[in-house]
C-alpha cells in the first residue's frame, strides 16, 4: 500500500463540481429538547448539503477528527513484544462514529507479527484491545433481516454502527478512502471480543481481548512513557488512599451525627402543672387586632446544666385545628428562684398576670431564655390549581447553663379566639449534630474529589485507562 498520510483530495460538489465548504445550521433536537448546531458540508455554488452520512462530509471536516492523532503510545514503525510475540506497527486507520455529530473516534493500529500475520490494536478512549484475524466455523450474515448467525449463535443487527474512515497512514492491507463507511458489529462470545467489519466489498472478522495499558506501555513505550506511567500509577494510588481516608471520615461523621440524633431525652412533666393567666383577651395595637392567651407551666426539673435542649412548640390539631388562620407565640424559660424573688412563693394568678403583662419592661429580666414563632394555615388557587399549606410546629435549640427547677411561660396571639390548650410544647435534651452534618458534606466532597483525581490523573501526554 505504500503511501502514508493520505490527505483529503480537493473537494468538489458531486452535483455541480464547485467547491465544498464547512457550514452549520441549527435544528431542534427532540431528545435534548433544545436547539443544536449541526455541521454540514455545503456547495458554494448550488448550495447542496452533505451531512455525516456522506463521504464528502468527512473530507471537509477531516481536520477536526485528527487534531490529536499523535497523542498515543503507538507510532508507525514501533516494535514491541507482547505475550511473547514481536509486533511492528505498520499502519493506522482512524474511524469516526457516523451517528455522532461530536468527535467520537477510535484508532485501529495495524501491526505485523514476527510470524508474518496481521494484527490490530484498537485504541479508544485510553483503552486498548488486541485483535487478530479469525475464521469462524460458520457465519451467515443474511440469516434474517434483524440478525445474523455466528458459530451457531444469533447476533442482533440492531447493535450495528457505522464507522467512517477519517485518517489513514502507513502500510495497510487495503487502500482506504477518507469518508469510506464500514459497518461494524461488536459482540462477545465465550469471553472473547469479536468484531465484524463489513465494507463495500469485504468482510473482516477479528477476535480479540482487552490488554492492560501497563502491558502496552511495557511492550511499545519508551523510557519516558514507562517513567511517566509509573509516576501516574503512584499518584493515582496516592489519591485512592486519600479517598479512603475521607470516606472513613464521612462514615465516622455519619455515625456521630446519627448517635447525636438518637440521644434525645425528653424532660418529663413540663405540661403536668399549669396556671392559665389570660384567655383570648382582645388586643388592638395600631389597628391590628388579636387575642392574647397566657399560661404558666411548671415547675419542672431540668436535670443537666451546660447541655443542649430543644423546645418544640406545636399546634395540637386534636384540641382545635388551625384552619386558614395564623397564630404567634412566645415561650419563656424562667428559673423558679428568679420568679420567687419577685412574686414570693405560691403566687396567685392575678399577680402573675400583672407580672407577665409587663414583663418586657422589667429592667432585670425574669426569664432565662425566650423563643418566638408563628403558625399559619393557608389555601388558594394558582396556575396548577388548588393548594393548601401550613406550618404548625416550631423548634429552637439552646444551651441551658444551669440545672434546676424551671417554669415555662407561653404567650399566644391569635387572629380569632382559640383554645388555650391548642398550643403545646415539649422540651428535650438533645445532641448537637449540625456540625457533623457539615463535616459529612466536607468529607464527601473531599472523597469525590480524590476519587475523581485517582481515576483521571495522568502525566502521560495521551489518554490511558489504568
Amino acid at each position: 500500500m505504500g503511501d502514508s498520510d493520505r490527505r483529503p483530495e480537493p473537494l468538489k460538489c458531486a452535483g455541480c463540481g464547485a467547491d465544498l465548504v464547512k457550514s452549520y445550521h441549527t435544528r431542534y433536537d427532540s431528545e435534548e429538547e433544545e436547539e443544536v448546531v449541526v455541521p454540514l458540508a455545503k456547495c458554494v455554488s448550488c448550495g447542496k448539503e452533505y451531512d455525516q452520512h456522506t463521504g464528502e462530509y468527512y473530507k471537509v471536516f477531516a481536520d477536526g477528527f485528527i487534531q490529536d492523532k499523535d497523542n498515543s503510545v503507538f507510532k508507525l514503525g514501533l516494535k514491541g513484544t507482547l505475550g511473547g510475540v514481536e509486533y511492528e506497527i505498520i499502519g493506522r486507520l482512524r474511524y469516526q462514529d457516523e451517528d455522532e455529530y461530536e468527535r467520537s473516534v477510535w484508532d485501529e493500529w495495524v501491526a505485523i507479527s514476527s510470524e508474518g500475520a496481521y494484527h490490530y490494536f484498537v485504541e479508544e478512549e485510553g483503552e486498548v484491545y488486541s485483535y487478530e484475524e479469525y475464521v469462524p466455523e460458520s457465519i451467515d450474515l443474511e440469516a434474517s433481516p434483524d440478525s445474523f448467525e455466528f458459530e451457531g449463535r444469533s447476533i442482533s443487527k440492531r447493535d450495528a454502527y457505522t464507522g467512517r474512515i477519517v485518517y489513514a497512514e502507513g502500510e495497510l492491507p487495503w487502500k482506504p478512502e477518507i469518508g469510506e463507511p464500514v459497518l461494524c458489529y461488536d459482540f462477545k462470545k465465550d469471553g472473547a471480543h469479536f468484531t465484524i467489519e463489513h465494507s463495500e466489498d469485504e468482510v473482516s472478522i477479528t477476535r480479540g481481548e482487552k490488554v492492560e495499558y501497563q502491558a502496552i506501555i511495557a511492550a511499545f513505550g519508551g523510557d519516558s512513557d514507562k517513567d511517566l506511567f509509573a509516576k501516574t500509577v503512584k499518584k493515582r494510588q496516592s489519591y485512592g488512599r486519600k479517598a479512603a481516608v475521607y470516606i472513613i471520615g464521612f462514615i465516622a461523621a455519619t455515625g456521630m451525627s446519627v448517635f447525636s440524633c438518637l440521644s434525645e431525652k425528653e424532660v418529663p412533666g413540663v405540661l403536668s402543672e399549669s396556671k392559665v393567666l389570660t384567655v383570648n383577651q382582645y388586643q388592638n395595637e395600631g389597628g391590628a387586632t388579636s387575642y392574647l392567651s397566657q399560661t404558666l407551666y411548671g415547675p419542672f426539673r431540668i436535670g443537666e446544666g451546660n447541655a443542649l435542649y430543644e423546645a418544640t412548640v406545636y399546634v395540637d390539631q386534636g384540641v382545635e385545628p388551625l384552619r386558614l388562620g395564623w397564630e404567634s407565640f412566645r415561650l419563656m424559660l424562667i428559673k423558679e428562684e428568679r420568679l420567687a424573688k419577685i412574686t414570693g412563693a405560691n403566687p396567685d394568678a392575678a399577680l402573675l398576670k400583672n407580672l407577665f403583662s409587663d414583663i418586657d419592661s422589667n429592667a432585670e429580666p425574669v426569664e432565662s431564655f425566650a423563643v418566638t414563632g408563628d403558625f399559619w394555615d393557608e389555601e388558594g388557587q394558582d396556575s396548577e390549581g388548588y393548594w393548601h399549606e401550613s406550618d404548625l410546629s416550631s423548634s429552637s435549640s439552646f444551651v441551658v447553663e444551669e440545672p434546676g427547677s424551671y417554669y415555662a411561660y407561653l404567650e399566644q396571639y391569635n387572629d380569632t379566639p382559640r383554645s388555650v390548650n391548642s398550643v403545646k410544647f415539649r422540651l428535650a435534651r438533645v445532641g448537637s449534630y449540625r456540625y457533623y452534618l457539615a463535616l459529612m458534606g466536607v468529607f464527601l466532597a473531599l472523597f469525590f474529589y480524590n476519587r475523581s483525581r485517582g481515576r483521571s490523573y495522568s502525566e502521560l501526554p495521551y489518554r490511558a485507562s489504568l
Partner: protein
Amino acid sequence: MIRSLIIALLLSGGVFAMSTWFVGYPRAGMRYITAQKEQRRSVRPGSHYYGGHYGARGFRGGK
C-alpha cells in the same frame, strides 16, 4: 496520605469540640439575662419592648 489523615483528624477534632461545647448555640441563663439587661437599658420606660409579637416574621408562608 499523611496530610489527608492530619486534615481528617483536625476537621473531626474541631467538629467534635464544637459539638461538645455547643459553639454557636444561644445560651439560656446568665448570658441571656446579661444581654437582655444591656438591651433594656436603652429602652425608654413604658415603651413596648418587643413591639407586639405576632406577625414578626410575616405570616405569608404558602405559595
